[in-house]
């Protein structure tokens, strides 16, 4: 074990240590044991969680052990005078410039340790990247399916973060082991929340990503963050206001010059009061329904140029509460209710995914809708403050909410479906409540409404 730190340095690498306690412990320890490399503290366990190290695993042991572990690492002795084990650690990862992961070790119990030679081998310039997801066994997957059956009939335990964790047990680990470097992805409303996380994940898989944002400044700031985090320079911004049809037309004209592989309809609004756009459309109807309909229509040619095109509609679990509304989409005859308008237009998106799938049958374009569950996004905080107050401790992260968007856009086997509604990587029924199922006439009326509104403008 002697000179392992030096060995790592000799290989041109740095040893970076993360602990979960307070800063003064770290400072004292560093001095006591003459550690000279980076030593970081993560009391909120943000990095631990991002690395997939669970809380129980991290906190299982007595406070003294890691210090002893580090001490042993430094002094070269593993047993004897020093208590504990040099590699009695939460996890060890080797990350290469550009972000490739060449080594992963997650300790399962106190006392197990990774072979140091493997770590040093993973530092070599030609070390091959390893699979990003730790393999999950059949048992895990069976457990996940059993638990899913238990929680899925309940809304709260399924849509919240617990639901994600349970459903994630059934995910296939290599589903997102894909290289998207040949693919061009467009994401609307990509400067925050689920849109941002979707764009980030697609850029991370190597795709060229265009962020379609209302505000060029916020869009540019998001693009810069994504470029920095992923090391992918091919992230750009296309300013567009999805509620304004002239803006949609102008953006589509610029975007249609090259093939489009992925189009994510994510941009959303939840206004307090009835607002009309310059086209005379109610704001949620324009933003969620007519704008994306028009964009899809104008990009149809560019999508058909791809040999594997995906259109993803980011709907909402709230749509389960409403039936498709085609008689008064602009709220002319009813007292305005923003939440109801939101849910109705989210229902319309699920129906549009089905209608577009039918319209594009026989082409290489698949169209699906999904709902992200309940996620902690800026929109939820500002538009649904009461909902947020009650649920904030059980909300999913935006990245968890975006998971199915990324899966539908990137996973090779996701293109087996078209016209369906997804939640946590599985097709689901779009109807949970009685009297929310629309008729075929209503679906046809929605298509006609969209055609008419987008032609008139």
């Amino acid at each position, binding site marked *: 074990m002697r000179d392992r730190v030096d060995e790592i340095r000799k290989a041109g690498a*740095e040893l*970076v240590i993360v602990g979960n306690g307070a800063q003064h412990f770290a*400072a004292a320890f*560093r001095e006591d044991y003459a550690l000279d490399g980076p030593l970081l503290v993560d009391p909120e366990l943000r990095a631990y969680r991002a690395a997939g190290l669970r809380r129980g695993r991290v906190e299982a042991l007595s406070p003294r052990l890691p210090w002893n572990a580090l001490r042993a690492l430094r002094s070269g002795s593993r047993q004897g005078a020093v208590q504990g084990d040099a590699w009695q650690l939460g*996890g060890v990862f*080797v990350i290469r410039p550009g972000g490739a992961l060449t080594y992963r070790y997650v300790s399962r119990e106190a006392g197990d340790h990774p072979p140091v030679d493997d770590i040093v081998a993973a*530092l070599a310039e030609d070390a091959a990247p390893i699979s990003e997801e730790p393999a999950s066994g059949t048992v895990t997957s069976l457990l996940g399916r059993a638990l899913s059956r238990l929680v899925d009939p309940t809304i709260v335990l399924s849509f919240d973060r617990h639901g994600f964790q349970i459903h994630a047990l059934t995910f296939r680990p290599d589903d997102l082991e894909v290289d998207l470097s040949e693919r061009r992805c467009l994401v609307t409303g990509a400067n925050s929340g689920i849109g941002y996380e979707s764009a980030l*994940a697609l850029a991370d898989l190597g795709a060229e990503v265009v962020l379609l944002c209302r505000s060029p400044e916020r869009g540019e700031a998001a693009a810069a963050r994504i470029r920095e985090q992923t090391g992918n320079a091919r992230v750009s911004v296309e300013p567009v206001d999805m509620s304004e049809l002239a803006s949609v037309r102008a953006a589509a004209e610029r975007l249609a010059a090259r093939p489009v592989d992925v189009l994510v309809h994510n941009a959303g609004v939840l206004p307090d009061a009835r607002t009309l756009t310059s086209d005379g459309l109610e704001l949620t109807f324009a933003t969620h329904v007519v704008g994306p309909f028009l964009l899809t229509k104008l990009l149809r040619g560019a999508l058909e140029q791809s040999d594997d095109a995906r259109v993803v509609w980011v709907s909402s679990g709230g749509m389960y509460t409403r039936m498709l509304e085609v008689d008064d989409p602009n709220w002319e005859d009813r007292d305005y209710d923003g939440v109801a308008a939101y849910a109705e237009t989210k229902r319309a998106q699920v129906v549009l995914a089905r209608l577009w799938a039918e319209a594009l049958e026989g082409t290489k374009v698949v169209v699906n809708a999904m709902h992200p569950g309940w996620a902690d996004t800026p929109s939820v905080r500002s538009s649904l403050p009461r909902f947020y107050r009650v649920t904030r401790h059980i909300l999913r992260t935006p990245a968890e909410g975006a998971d199915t968007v990324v899966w539908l856009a990137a996973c090779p086997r996701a293109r087996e479906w078209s016209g369906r509604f997804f939640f946590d990587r599985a097709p689901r029924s779009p109807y949970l409540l009685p009297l929310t199922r629309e008729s075929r006439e209503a679906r046809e009326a929605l298509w006609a409404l969209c055609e008419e509104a987008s032609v008139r403008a």
Partner: protein
Amino acid sequence: MRLATRLAGIELSDWRGQRVRLGSFWEDRPIVLVFIRHFG
């Protein structure tokens, strides 16, 4: 999402209390990132 991308944007304090972005460590060299089980 790649592990490196999830970690890159996270800012932590070092032993002096200085904020540092995790991604900055592997910009120009490989790193061995060690999470210890406890920290005092």
